[in-house]
């Protein structure tokens, strides 16, 4: 069930109304049922996979907390979860890479490539598996570190399957989630409205902006070899906006849905494109994933409390695996490596600044000035943009073609029709007015709230935003980009 589908827009109000009408003791059961219904509406059989993973991890968590052989149980748990993820996500990637290597090396080693090749498997990636597997690993690790396990099986199952964060995160921390389950939920009209507002904001970002940019990006990347300089920049920038609006739109809708049910999910984005440097970008982009990678990969590898070369090594390994987590494809690996190298550069620069005292004062002054901030933000965005080219491209070669086009002076008309056809400029302008003017400035927000102080007027305003979002959306449903991860 897609958040931007009619089914979900009918499903959510029914669930919210029923949830608040039910006595508190039945609410967890109800949410668990609806979450499995939500998941199984896509492919029922994968509901059993989710259930099996939940049961196994529940018992593994109990075994780890029992104390005896806890390290062994943790290892079993991590291997079990990663093996499941690898089978569904990386089996074909491994086979394909092996077969390609066999084709190249076979004649050299005088072995016929066909004799060592394997056929590709017919495996359909279960939705959200990358997200809930990471949640399970976090749970087992934290329990191993002394955290209190979740005793109630229903609560544990709900932590794993909670529908607002089931398919594409945010990757929850069990301590925060379980705390919210332990206290009775109290209905709040203010929270309901806040949730509704987030759902609408997410819907607008997804259907009015991201979906209108998708064909422009698609036209650009599919014609990579024919792209001129300007259009290559347009396609790349369009993708940077598309992926932000798509993913943060999903997160807004998920968080909004959760708030309507009385839950708070962690935020995943904080104006990532105004980051001043790459480490700052990763504190603002997909926050729940970057903090997961920091806590469960970077720090266990040694983190920053080791020698400089080892630290750089850890950064690159973390980012490489972070890239591979996004998809079983070499262009994601290149994207991860690119960010890894960027982070290493930033850390080296910082270390150099600390060493050179005189230079440090001058540069710190520059970085603090408005010109310095502008330059830093622009350079960071430029770096992220180049990274997005590899992320969006179907292959590394295609990514290189787009990059090459970005630095050429040729002109092309591959995007003209798409730009003319989709009302993305109006949608973006509306969003900018809404976010930058209203939400960033307190005085405007207050005057907006005093202009429409009553519930009936607000309901009308929300309906208008909804009609506006749907009206500006192109025909046909487009799934969220992060669903494939």
């Amino acid at each position, binding site marked *: 069930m897609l958040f931007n589908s*009619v089914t979900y827009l009918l499903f959510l109000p029914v669930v919210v109304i029923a949830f608040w009408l039910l006595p508190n003791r039945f609410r967890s059961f109800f949410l668990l049922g609806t979450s499995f219904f939500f998941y199984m509406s896509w492919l029922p059989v994968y509901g059993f996979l989710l259930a099996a993973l939940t049961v196994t991890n529940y018992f593994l968590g109990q075994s780890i907390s029992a104390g005896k052989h806890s390290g062994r149980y943790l290892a079993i748990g991590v291997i079990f979860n990663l093996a499941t993820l690898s089978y569904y996500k990386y089996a074909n990637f491994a086979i394909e890479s092996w077969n390609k290597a066999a084709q190249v090396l076979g004649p050299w080693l005088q072995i016929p490539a066909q004799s060592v090749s394997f056929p590709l498997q017919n495996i359909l990636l279960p939705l959200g598996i990358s997200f809930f597997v990471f949640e399970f690993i976090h749970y087992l690790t934290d329990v191993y570190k002394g955290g209190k396990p979740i005793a109630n099986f229903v609560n544990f199952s709900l932590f794993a399957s909670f529908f607002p964060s089931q398919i594409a995160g945010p990757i929850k921390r069990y301590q925060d989630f379980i705390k919210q389950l332990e206290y009775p939920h109290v209905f709040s009209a203010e929270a309901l409205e806040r949730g509704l507002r987030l759902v609408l904001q997410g819907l607008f970002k997804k259907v009015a902006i991201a979906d209108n940019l998708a064909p422009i990006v698609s036209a650009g990347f599919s014609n990579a070899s024919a792209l001129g300089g300007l259009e290559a920049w347009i396609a790349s920038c369009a993708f940077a906006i598309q992926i932000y609006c798509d993913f943060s739109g999903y997160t807004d809708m998920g968080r909004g849905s959760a708030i309507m049910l009385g839950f708070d999910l962690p935020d995943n984005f904080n104006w990532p494109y105004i980051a001043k440097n790459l480490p700052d970008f990763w504190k603002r982009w997909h926050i729940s994933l970057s903090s997961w990678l920091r806590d469960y990969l970077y720090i266990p590898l040694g983190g920053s409390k080791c020698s400089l070369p080892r630290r750089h090594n850890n950064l690159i390994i973390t980012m490489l695996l972070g890239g591979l987590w996004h998809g079983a494809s070499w262009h994601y690996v290149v994207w991860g490596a690119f960010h890894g190298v960027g982070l290493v550069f930033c850390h080296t620069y910082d270390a150099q600044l600390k060493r050179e005292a005189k230079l440090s004062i001058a540069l710190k002054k520059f970085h603090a000035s408005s010109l310095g901030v502008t330059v830093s933000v622009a350079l960071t965005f430029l770096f992220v943009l180049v990274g997005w080219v590899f992320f969006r491209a179907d292959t590394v070669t295609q990514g290189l073609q787009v990059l090459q086009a970005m630095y050429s002076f040729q002109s092309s008309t591959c995007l003209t*029709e798409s730009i*003319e*056809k*989709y*009302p993305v400029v*109006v*949608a973006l302008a*509306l969003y900018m007015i809404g976010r930058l003017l209203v939400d960033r400035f307190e005085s405007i927000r207050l005057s907006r709230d005093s202009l*429409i102080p*009553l*519930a*009936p*007027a*607000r*309901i*009308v*305003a929300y*309906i*208008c935003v909804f*009609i*506006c979002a*749907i*009206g*500006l959306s*192109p*025909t046909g449903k487009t799934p969220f980009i992060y669903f494939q991860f």
Partner: protein
Amino acid sequence: MKTELAETEKKLSDIEGNTANVTAYPWLKALVQMNIALFIGLVFLEAVFYLARVGESDHLMPDQKLGFKPFAHKRITQRNEGFGSFQFNSFGMQNDEITLTKPINVYRIAVFGDSYVESLQVPRESNYCSLLAKELSRELGKPTEVLNFGVSNYSLAQDYLRYQTLAKDFNPDLVIIAYRVGETEKVLPDNRQSLAFVRPVLFVDQNGKLIYNNTVVANFYKAKEGKRLLNTQILREYSRTWNTLGRMQQSWAVGSKDTEGKASSPLIADEKTREKFAACYWFMIDPILKNFAKECAANHTAILIMRTPMVHPGEYVLSRNEVETDQLEATAREAKADFINLDRLLQLNAKNHDYRPYFLEGSHFSKPMHKFIAKNLAKHIASTISNSSQESAP
């Protein structure tokens, strides 16, 4: 001083009284606020949709005689297949504004057909009517006007009725009938409850005389959907929000997939059946073409029947139907109408029989096809004119 105090007290008591009135009717306050919000909301939506050119795809209005026709003066934006944004002229034509009286020394052509002539999928300056006007002006050495009378989903009968009710007043020098082999599907009365299928039928009696039958039209406008369309005509014409809501309702309606399927897929299953069907029902098409040609001749207007290429949506294989093409050519000959087979010309011209560049995803003509048609038509018309002037010379 005392009077001032008393006045102030009076004012204060008035204000209190008013407040009491409002708090006594909180629902009234809510209702007023809601209506104001609704008004502002609607204005906001209309402005946004106007700027974004959204909610402008609905371009047909009910017509008791023709079944339906395009709105006059309406701005239309089409995004389903290709992209086009136009202002229909005051006669409800996909044309720039024109005068009813033909300017002196202008060669005027009227083109009839369905959406393939109307050409909402490409910019107006790129459709074959506009290109033909340019090409022919150059070839003939005098200004040429090409009037686009194409209307989405129009049948041959509706083309003829549009000629009678509107086009003949423009005194065209030449009438072009664009004929696709899908025409046979529009011959019979259609009972689908959708405006695009409300077509009158021209039956033929034993003497070859056409009999206008508007049963389908009358029934439709008596039924629920027809009444709804008649009652909401102003909203459909002017409100982009209304049209957007209509689009939302359509795409969200239960079973909408079935309706869409029925509307877009051909009624006749395959090419063989189509050939048999065409052979059977030619007795209905033949007299319409002949009467059309006869009336044109009576108005001193030449007529050209043009067989245009056709593919099915998503396929890029030409729909051949030689039987129908042969019958069309024979009818043209008997009606003393000029004939051009663009389908055959395309087969000769397309590289490796790859027709992909000539058609859009939904089977409408792409820019290269419009160019191809205009070029060949201009050549054909210019040579016909020069031949006839040579024949008429002493």
